[in-house]
């Protein structure tokens, strides 16, 4: 401010120089809760989502899907469909010009099925027509003759030697083995447990949708809401058999992702239809189609055996985790690896035997979802820690503290944990938070129904209600692991427009709601000291940013934008030195070049506007994190991850023990975010992630019977409402990270990892029941439904049951 006034004083004196532009300090930089550029539009309902895309003369595409989870296609008859007035084309597998399959990790999924059908909802044919209703009617007239087969619907059964092979490679998609320390350890106290996690859906509100526009020269422009433009692009190039430059992709307005948009949905289909018809083609799934048109979180069965000394030191963990990968690979391999590496939790475990499997079945394909393998594992190991604490007669938090991982801990994979690993701090923080008041004191009449289990549905006025408190802590890798060449690209351009410096950022980072656009703006404002900044639409005209997944974009695209800014700044300062002879420590701030020598007040050398004039400074940078390595296939040893993030939760629940209904009174969380570059965005992630975890604990489940989804709509796929999700008490730790830009850690996934386990623990505390499966249903709380896993007797002294697989 001082500089500001002195400046005006200077310019008021007669001078031959042009008056300098008034200087206002740059706002909306790093560390501030800068506002999202799309905030107002979204609040006013004016934001254009991908489902709002429109082009003159466009056709509507729709997908013909198999109603059977397992079948063979005998024939497809499109003749009736072709007679529908307004129909433009019908396509089948024969019409796919290039690679007939796609897949992010393993291209095992047909673009359009021929021969085998492997899940209910598999795409068989495509229809384009001048109206969505016409397209749907025509699609219903595509006659597919199926030979219906018995589906393989159980992951364990799929591994049996006599199970029918669903893919040529067999049904076991991946087996990750980790062998650490003594494989025949003995322990004073051993607890075993078997747990189950149901199939959660990402439930993004925006359906899969996009618009493909042929360019008239054989190429195509595709506007789509996705998580990773370039991995889609690679798959489009392969299946459309075009040159990379012929396919241009632009990110469209996204209505949530959470992992559901990592895989291809409409991308190839819309382009095929548009290229065939020569007209723009829009596709937008209905809600039902969306539920079968994207992958889900892997359901899991987890067997655990924990051994400890009498005084509560972990001696060993043995676990066998089986994921149902469903019909196609998607990102199952990486999910399996993640679960294996985090299977023991954020604890010091001297001896571990870990076997983690993912299998093909005829259930819906499963893939990426917030937490990616770490969520399921956390429910297993944290349930075990509580059980162990009970067997030892120890306080569950004390047991965790006694075994908490810290900086320098060796993981079961042999990897050393570098940088802050504040597991104990997180637990202490949670324990120190005040507990919400118990509502028992209030008289019946005064209690607002909304504070009770059941809400205004008026199921209890306090009868049967018991309170429970539960803790859980979890951790996860940030960014891509296991030797993947993980990088992000950013281009930053500084120029002067209308007398004002303006910074433009171009990256392909997918804004999935997490705020990566805002963050890029904050970085350039801070790094270049300019107020006016623009993030160009994410597209494939710039290099890959990698996926908006694995909690990696703040670190990766943030790192790329920072590095590009540094390169631009270097050139600008060099220009100031050469053009104006400026010397000393030059910095960019408030739209100007300043000399900021130690001990002296900064003085201005020149405004950027004056310095640059018509010159444009542009730099493109690829940022990479330190390399990682794959695990050894036999021992599971290796430095697979580049960094970790830690979070914990304390859940306080009121349970109507007679009806099995639950009111979560409070969720408290503590998380080390490294550094909160946008505090409000960080809080939003913690709240949202906590809610999504609460949903998994209490209600969110794709229910499947015989391979068929029974609840493909929001009528019966329930997600928490405002009456289910309490306020979140947060302790955001900023302990830095020595190996990332600005010391950040990823923020998006950790809040989802320990939240389900904490809710389950609180429910157990309130009810005294084992509750070995999430989502916990009223049937479980009331004891009316014994899950398969509930049937396993509870005997902490039982000898080791889990036999490690030998090669």
């Amino acid at each position, binding site marked *: 401010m001082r500089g500001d006034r002195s400046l005006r004083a200077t310019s008021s004196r007669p001078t031959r120089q042009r008056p300098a532009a008034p200087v206002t300090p740059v706002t909306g930089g790093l560390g501030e809760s800068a506002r999202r550029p799309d905030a107002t539009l979204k609040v006013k309902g004016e934001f254009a989502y991908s489902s709002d895309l429109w082009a003159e003369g466009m056709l509507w595409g729709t997908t013909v899907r198999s109603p059977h989870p397992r079948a063979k296609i005998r024939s497809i008859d499109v003749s009736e469909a072709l007679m529908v007035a307004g129909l433009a084309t019908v396509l089948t597998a024969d019409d796919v010009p290039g690679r007939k399959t796609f897949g992010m990790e393993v291209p095992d999924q047909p673009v359009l099925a021929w021969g085998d059908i492997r899940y209910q909802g598999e795409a068989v044919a495509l229809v384009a027509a001048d109206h969505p209703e016409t397209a749907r009617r025509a699609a219903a007239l595509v006659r597919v003759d199926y030979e219906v087969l018995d589906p393989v619907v159980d992951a364990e059964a799929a591994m049996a030697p006599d199970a029918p092979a669903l893919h040529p490679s067999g049904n076991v998609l991946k087996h990750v083995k980790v062998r650490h320390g003594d494989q025949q350890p003995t322990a004073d106290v051993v607890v075993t447990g078997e747990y189950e996690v149901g199939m959660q859906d990402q439930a993004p509100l925006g359906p899969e949708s996009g618009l493909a526009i042929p360019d008239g020269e054989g190429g195509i422009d595709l506007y789509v809401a996705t998580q990773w433009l370039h991995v889609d692009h690679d798959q489009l190039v392969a299946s459309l058999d075009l040159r990379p430059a012929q396919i241009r992709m632009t990110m469209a307005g996204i209505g949530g992702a959470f992992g559901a948009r990592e895989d291809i949905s409409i991308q190839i289909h819309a382009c095929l239809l548009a290229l065939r018809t020569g007209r723009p083609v829009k596709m937008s799934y209905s809600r039902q189609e969306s539920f079968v048109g994207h992958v889900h979180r892997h359901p899991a069965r987890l067997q655990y055996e924990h051994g400890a000394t009498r005084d509560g030191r972990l001696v060993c963990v043995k676990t066998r985790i089986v994921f149902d990968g469903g019909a196609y690979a998607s990102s199952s391999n990486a999910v399996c690896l993640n679960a294996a590496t985090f299977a023991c939790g954020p604890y010091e475990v001297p001896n571990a035997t870990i076997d983690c499997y993912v299998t093909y079945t005829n259930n819906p394909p499963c893939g990426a979802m917030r937490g990616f393998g770490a969520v399921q594992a956390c429910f297993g190991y944290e349930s075990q820690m509580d059980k162990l604490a009970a067997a030892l007669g120890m306080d569950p938090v004390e047991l965790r503290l006694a075994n908490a991982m810290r900086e320098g801990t060796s993981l079961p994979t042999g990897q050393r944990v570098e940088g802050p690993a504040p597991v104990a701090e997180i637990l202490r923080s949670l324990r120190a938070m005040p507990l919400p008041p118990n509502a028992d004191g209030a008289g019946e009449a005064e209690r607002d129904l909304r504070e009770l289990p059941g809400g205004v549905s008026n199921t209890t006025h306090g*009868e049967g209600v018991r309170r429970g408190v539960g803790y859980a802590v979890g951790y996860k890798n940030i960014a891509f692991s296991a030797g993947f060449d993980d990088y992000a690209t950013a281009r930053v351009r500084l120029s002067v427009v209308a007398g004002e410096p303006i910074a433009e950022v171009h990256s392909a980072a997918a804004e999935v709601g997490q705020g990566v656009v805002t963050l890029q703006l904050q970085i350039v404002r801070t790094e270049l000291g300019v107020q006016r900044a623009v993030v160009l639409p994410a597209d494939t005209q710039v290099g890959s940013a990698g996926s908006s997944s694995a909690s990696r974009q703040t670190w990766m695209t943030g790192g790329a934008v920072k590095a590009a800014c540094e390169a631009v700044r270097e050139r600008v300062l060099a220009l100031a030195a050469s053009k104006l002879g400026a010397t000393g420590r030059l910095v960019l701030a408030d739209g100007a070049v300043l000399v900021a020598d130690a001990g002296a007040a900064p003085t201005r050398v020149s405004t950027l506007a004056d310095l640059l004039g018509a010159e444009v400074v542009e730099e493109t940078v690829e940022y990479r994190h330190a390399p990682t390595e794959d695990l050894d296939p036999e021992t599971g040893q290796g430095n697979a991850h580049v960094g970790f993030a830690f979070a914990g939760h304390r859940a306080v629940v009121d349970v109507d023990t007679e009806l099995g209904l639950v009111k979560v009174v409070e969720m408290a969380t503590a998380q080390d975010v490294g550094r909160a570059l946008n505090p409000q965005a960080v809080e939003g992630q913690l709240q949202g992630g906590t809610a999504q975890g609460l949903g998994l604990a209490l209600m969110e489940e794709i229910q499947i019977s015989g391979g068929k989804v029974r609840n493909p709509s929001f009528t019966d796929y329930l997600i928490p*409402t405002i009456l289910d999700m309490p306020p979140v008490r947060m302790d955001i730790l900023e302990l830095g990270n020595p190996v990332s830009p600005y010391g950040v850690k990823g923020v998006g996934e950790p809040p989802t990892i320990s939240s389900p386990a904490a809710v389950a623990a609180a429910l157990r505390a309130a009810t005294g029941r084992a509750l070995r499966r999430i989502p916990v249903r009223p049937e479980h709380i009331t004891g009316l439904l014994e899950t398969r896993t509930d049937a396993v007797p509870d005997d902490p002294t039982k000898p080791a049951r889990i036999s490690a697989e030998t090669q």
Partner: protein
Amino acid sequence: MDFLQPRSWSDALAAKTNRPDAQPLAGGTDVLVDLNFDRHRPAALLDLGRIGELAGWSRDDDALRLGAGLTYTIAAAELVDDLPGLAMAARTVGSPQIRNRGTIGGNLGSASPAGDAHPPLLAAGAEVELASAAGSRRVPIREFFLGPKRNALAPDELIAAVLVPRATGPQQFAKVGTRNAMVIAVCSFALALHPDHQRVGTGIGSAGPVPLVADDAECFCEGALAESDLWSTRAAIEESTRRRFGELVAAAARPIDDVRGSAAYRSHALSVLAARALGWAWADYRRS
């Protein structure tokens, strides 16, 4: 699809006679969902939204007349004293948007076993007034529900109103769902005490092919109350009476296993809800 938009009730009845295949459209919260999900392709829609006389409710002495177009928002706000069971049920329906649009007539038209208006109307002893161009008739609500999503409407008829005696005693409604708002009933229970006739009314939702009445539970409760002369002494009801009442309500249900809950849970939950509801209603009665 044709869109018919009569301005008056007689025009609507005439339209329905001419086009028995036209589907009435009130708030549209069921009709439009069905259209969106492509479950249903009616040849025509008959929009009742322009017919003012359907919307309100009125009271003549102790008789209430609820127009078929009465929304949940209005029912929840205005019927708290005259028909508290329905007001409580209305408050549990969907979200504010759904309560603003959704109507009692639409709930009856859909005749879902999970419709939340049905149990309190059963407990209160309502009648449904059905009308056609030829005239109107009254159907006791118990006879209105014929099967899952099937009702007694003839192809040329419309629902005009629900006729129901004004509450003379406490009423309760309780609904179990797997989340705390915006949820379809896993099961629900409504209770109405009728001190003037020393009668007890019940209604069970979402635990059978149609909304049900627990006759045995009603008889048992009436007997227990009469036996100890509780209507006049207003003494407390025995815990065992409430429990037995709950058991008999559960016994009247004919639940199935489905995606929302198991049959066993529904029966169990009904026994709990009924016992609690009787306790609350009786406590109200004792205070009154």
